[in-house]
């Protein structure tokens, strides 16, 4: 009789379990698991939720957090709408230079954030190509204001929605759209009532990814933001400042506040997604 062994894993002749699982677990522990535990331990056990609140509940910290999340939400909402339109244009229309445009959408993934930061600042600064034109016509400054932060975050989050929605549009069965048309719906009505709901779950996924990325973004923002405390100072920058002052507790508290709010937002998006998927599944 073979001995029944109780393991986490069902037995198999596939080789390499020990080696692959070992490498994975070791590296995961050293790079992610232990460092994250140290941070959370230091925050929650070190000085507790109350202590974290005391740090966060100060005007400068509070306005930095508010700014980071507000700007990230605004930029991601823009990217949500623009991303769906761009994905549609890239899948459904034919025009010269389309493949080039398609490839260029990934530029924000490939271009280092510091490069994006100084480049955006150069053109949106008051003496820059676009900055001066905008200031002359609308009387608005872009760089060194919150508007500049929006621009940087839109840049950083641009590819996410496009890349999650594109494959879904490619797989839409055109007969669904034709059915809508034979039932008398206008093209606009077909798009808003039939096509958009099909894209919603993927678009939301892209939105969540863009949001997570832009909330924590640092490199592209600090050049264009102006970094004025209480006005254009983002939360990640405040963490850096606290670290430079050797105020580790302050840095930890802000980091945990950011992680908590991000987690709550992503959870909410996930719930909306489950709800919208269930509706789709019921059709």
């Amino acid at each position: 009789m073979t001995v029944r062994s109780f393991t986490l894993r069902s037995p198999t002749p596939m080789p390499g379990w020990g080696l692959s699982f070992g490498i994975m677990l070791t590296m995961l522990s050293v790079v992610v698991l232990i460092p994250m535990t140290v941070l959370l331990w230091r925050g929650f056990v070190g000085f507790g939720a109350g202590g974290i609140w005391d740090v966060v509940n100060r005007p400068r910290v509070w306005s930095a957090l508010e700014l980071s999340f507000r700007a990230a939400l605004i930029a991601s909402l823009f990217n949500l709408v623009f991303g769906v339109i761009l994905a549609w244009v890239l899948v459904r229309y034919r025009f010269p230079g389309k493949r080039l445009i398609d490839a260029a959408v990934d530029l924000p993934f490939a271009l280092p954030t510091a490069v994006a930061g100084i480049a955006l600042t150069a053109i949106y600064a008051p003496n820059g190509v676009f900055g001066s034109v905008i200031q002359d016509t609308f009387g608005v400054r872009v760089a060194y204001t919150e508007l500049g932060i929006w621009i940087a975050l839109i840049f950083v989050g641009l590819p996410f929605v496009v890349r999650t929605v594109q494959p879904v549009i490619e797989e839409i069965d055109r007969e669904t759209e034709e059915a809508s048309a034979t039932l008398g719906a206008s093209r606009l009505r077909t798009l808003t009532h039939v096509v958009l709901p099909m894209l919603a779950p993927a678009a939301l996924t892209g939105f969540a990814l863009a949001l997570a990325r832009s909330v924590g973004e640092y490199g592209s923002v600090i050049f264009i933001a102006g970094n004025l405390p209480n006005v254009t100072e983002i939360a990640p920058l405040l963490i850096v400042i606290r670290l430079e002052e050797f105020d580790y507790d302050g840095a930890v508290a802000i980091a945990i506040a950011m992680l908590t709010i991000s987690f709550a937002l992503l959870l909410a998006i996930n719930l909306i997604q489950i709800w919208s998927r269930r509706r789709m599944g019921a059709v």
Partner: protein
Amino acid sequence: MNIEIEEISKDFGTTAALHPVSLSIPSGTLVALLGPSGSGKTTLLRILGGLEFPTAGRVLFDGADATNLSVQDRRAGFVFQSYALFRHMTVFDNIAYGLRARPRKSRPQTAEIARRVTKLLELIKLPDIGARYPSQLSGGQRQRVALARALAIEPRMMLLDEPFGALDAKVRRELRQGLRDIHDTTGLTSIFVTHDQEEAMELADLVVVMSMGRIEQVGKPEDIRARPKTEFVREFISA
């Protein structure tokens, strides 16, 4: 080689894929494991091939305990349902794979490998396709290449998982005879899994009808047809 299955059972988590089953297969027999999906026939075949470990029970090859024999040492010629041809290798390299994987001592010379591959290509009646890639073959050709690849390692038995499952009706009929011929030429004990009762009855010497992880009946095709032992067998073979 004769195969002895003693009280083999297999659990996946809390569900039992095989209740203890026992079966004795004489050397040189062509056996069909027949049953609907979920009857445990593929699990039993994979246990024989060393791809799955039984929860309890023993497997004997020629009287020697092979339960814990590694998959490499079993020398079972396994033909997968999807054929699992190596898509980045030519047909020639696919068939030569097992010979080249042998330890240096028992590995044949390059020329000898080429000779054996050529012979196998002739056996499956596809002598000219050695340089092609699997994606350039028809379904029927792929199945025969998978057969040749399994035969190349000079197996002690042949195990075939739904060997005709992915083929259309016409090719199926042609290849059935092909499998029978190869079995008769090599004389290897061969076990194939199928859900098609006509296929099992026409091709096999011995039919094992399975359902819900149990063996319902074992017998020659004509006996099973004439005297179905249970209601399930009666229903299934008349379908």
